């Protein structure tokens, strides 16, 4: 489903990321591990077609997403990618429900309100649908962001440091939630993190280790 070949990304003439080969079958999940500055977020941005690689190929279901025009990349991302940024960034001016429905507006393909309600219900947020983000706890906001990421049933669910500053129990809980919703949506979950606890929390996931500096990553 996902394959990366000879991927190189440079910023300001310096190599930020290099991935010779990586492949992920449909339904498989992956963990991108590495210290800060290793290029984990950059790789997620490349996988989301937010950035384009200078060399190499990223293919999703046979489509070279690095070769997409900006317009095509936006459309592809809106349809096939669920993205959880490091900072959850719910829109403060919108209710919980509207935040979940937001991908519909952004991608131009209206999201299913019934699915939004079902997701909120499943995530224990049914009573908070009309609440504003500032009225929620950190954990509740994270669950809203998860609902927003999976509402359009993406092929790729990308999460950037979702367990940072969480205790072990919360780390387990969030990871399980992400895995469950990825499976329900038929998505491959790819988490970028420096948190080694996730190896245990994501049994069976492919692990791609990114070194701190330039160098070849090694798959485990």
């Amino acid at each position, binding site marked *: 489903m996902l394959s990366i070949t000879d991927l190189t990304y440079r910023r300001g003439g310096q190599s930020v990321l290099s991935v010779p080969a990586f492949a992920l079958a449909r339904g498989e999940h992956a963990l991108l591990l590495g210290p800060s500055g290793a290029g984990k*977020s*950059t790789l997620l*941005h490349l996988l*989301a077609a*937010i*950035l384009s690689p200078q060399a190499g190929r990223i293919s999703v279901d046979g489509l070279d997403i690095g070769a997409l025009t*900006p*317009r095509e990349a*936006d*459309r592809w*991302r*809106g*349809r096939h*990618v669920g*993205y959880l*940024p*490091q*900072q959850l*960034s719910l*829109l*403060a*001016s*919108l209710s919980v429900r*509207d935040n979940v*429905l*937001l*991908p*519909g*507006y*952004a*991608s*131009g393909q*209206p999201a299913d*309100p019934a699915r939004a309600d079902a997701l909120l219900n499943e995530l224990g947020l049914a009573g908070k649908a009309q609440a504003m983000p500032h009225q929620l706890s950190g954990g509740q906001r994270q669950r809203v962001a998860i609902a*927003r990421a999976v509402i359009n049933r993406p092929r790729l669910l990308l999460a*950037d440091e979702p367990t940072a500053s969480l205790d072990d129990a919360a780390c387990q809980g969030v990871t399980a939630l992400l895995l469950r919703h990825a499976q329900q949506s038929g998505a491959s979950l790819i988490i970028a993190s420096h948190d080694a606890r996730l190896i245990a929390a994501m049994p069976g996931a492919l692990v791609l280790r990114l070194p701190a500096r330039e160098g070849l990553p090694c798959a485990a």
Partner: protein
Amino acid sequence: MRRLNAVTLALAALRHQKLSSALNLLLMAFGVALMTFIVAVSAQLEQGALRDADGIDMVVGAKGSPLQLILSSVYHIDIPTGNIPATAQAELAANRLVAQVIPLALGDSYQGYRIVGTNPDYVRHYGGQAATGVLFGGPMQVVLGAEAARVTGKKPGDSFAGSHGLVAGGEQHVHAPYQVVGVLRPTGTVLDRLIVTSVASVWQVHDTDPDHVGTAASASEHEVTALLVRYASPLAAVSLPRWINSQTRLQAAQPAFEAAKLFQLLGVGADVLRAIAGGVLAVAGLSMLVALYHALQERQADLAILRTLGAPPRTLLVLLLTQGLLLSLGGALLGWLLGHAGVGLLGHLMQAQQNLGLSAWRITPSEAWLLPVAAAVGLLAALLPAVRAYRIDIAATLAHH
């Protein structure tokens, strides 16, 4: 169930920044209200002036200021320049260049409404028709214009004594009361604010005044205040005023010319006010730009998130422009309503002194440009933030937040 679109998102963002949105809305509203007020008042005054002077080619009266003659005889808002011999009417009517001469005998009023001695042609000239009763015919009979009747409460069958002078509070002519025989339908002209009678009745009031016994004028000495003249031929405009002005006691004034002069004078003041209102609109635009730009700084992460969810740059551009447009159009609508309410208030306040015929909800075509201008100010103010939103670097923004 509401659907998310650029308008609902922009409204949500504006609601989220309540104070800033309200201040910008008010600033825009203030500018538009000022502009609306000036435009509406100017237009209504000009329309009213044109309507009142329509069909009157020339006014003949006593020598003095021609503008004063027009203001007193056509618009009934100034003191007459004096009187002229009543015989001038017949002399003028005999001229082949003259189609119609309507005499006016002024001098008295009732509760601030002027009593105009004239003939039924004057009523017909303004399209006056009796709403109740009949037009005046016999001695001391009057008909009241619609507004004069409404304010004074007089109706057919009532009688009243006129006061000397053209403002309320003058000496009353109790010896010669007028009989109300009719009330006119509203015409939207100066006629609505007048009490109309025959010239003979006005003469009778003064001829029989016990305070002026022995000074009653003979038929040949009777005077009128002014003569409203309609030309029989366009050629009259060239020769007739010159001929009249060459006579020692008479002067001719042309309403169109004097009104144009007056509006030119008033126009200078209106231009200054317009410039001030334009300045306020510009400040409103700048303030909106600052607010939207500031909001953009705070919402960079939101916009980057929208991009990660698949929104193309164009969507962000439209979103920011919609925000500016909604703010400016909201302000413009509020300002327009306030401006017209101001016109209504002015009309109400001036009614007691000098009715200018101002109406709050009479919309003039000259206001049509206000909305596009306000929209343009809003779009212009939102353009810079919108372009920045369009160019947002998603990866860099996500990395910094």
